[in-house]
């Protein structure tokens, strides 16, 4: 069966520090991968998606970047965090367009 792992679960980082959040999927190949951010009490904002190794599409110009170094690994990064980067970050995968998404358990990031 397919599983998705996302870590860490919580993170408190100072302003200006770097960020690296990792997401891995098991039990499938060539998945579509997604990073979303959810502000408190709000809906989800799509940040990045990837349909293959090295293929990244950015939805919102911001202080973040994403990479897909392996087929089932998706990394969200920042060189210097801002206060506005605080939020709940969710990784998800799907088998293709028109299919449901499976989400990871999320990372709650607080930038102080």
């Amino acid at each position, binding site marked *: 069966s397919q599983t998705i792992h996302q870590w860490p679960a919580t993170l408190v980082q100072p302003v200006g520090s770097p960020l690296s959040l990792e997401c891995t999927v098991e039990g499938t190949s060539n998945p579509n991968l997604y990073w979303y951010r959810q502000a408190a009490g709000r*809906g*989800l904002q799509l940040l990045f998606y990837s349909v293959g190794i090295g293929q990244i599409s950015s939805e919102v110009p911001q202080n973040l970047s994403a990479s897909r170094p392996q087929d089932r690994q998706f990394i969200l990064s920042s060189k210097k965090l801002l206060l506005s980067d605080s939020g709940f970050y969710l990784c998800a995968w799907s088998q293709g367009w028109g299919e*449901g998404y499976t989400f990871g358990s999320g990372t709650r990031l607080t930038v102080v």
Partner: protein
Amino acid sequence: SQQGEEDPQALSIQEGENATMNCSYKTSINNLQWYRQNSGRGLVHLILIRSNEREKHSGRLRVTLDTSKKSSSLLITASRAADTASYFCATDAVWNKLIFGTGTLLAVQP
């Protein structure tokens, strides 16, 4: 930008009652999906309805889709305290991009 808007924003009912949530969207879609999110957790996929379908059932869930009105509804019958969560609709109007609505917070009182 938000594609879907759920209504109501919050809903409180008693256990055993039915809960209905509505979703409106702006552009033509391929399919519409509903997800549940328990507090502080990831989202769980509930049901997917394609643009050529009008109604779909899964257990106690019933979803309808009216593409002429660009709207969908999610009905949870015989609600339980464990159904307490936020519910989101999501649409895939654009290839490989699932856009979520703002969510309905459902509270089921025991």
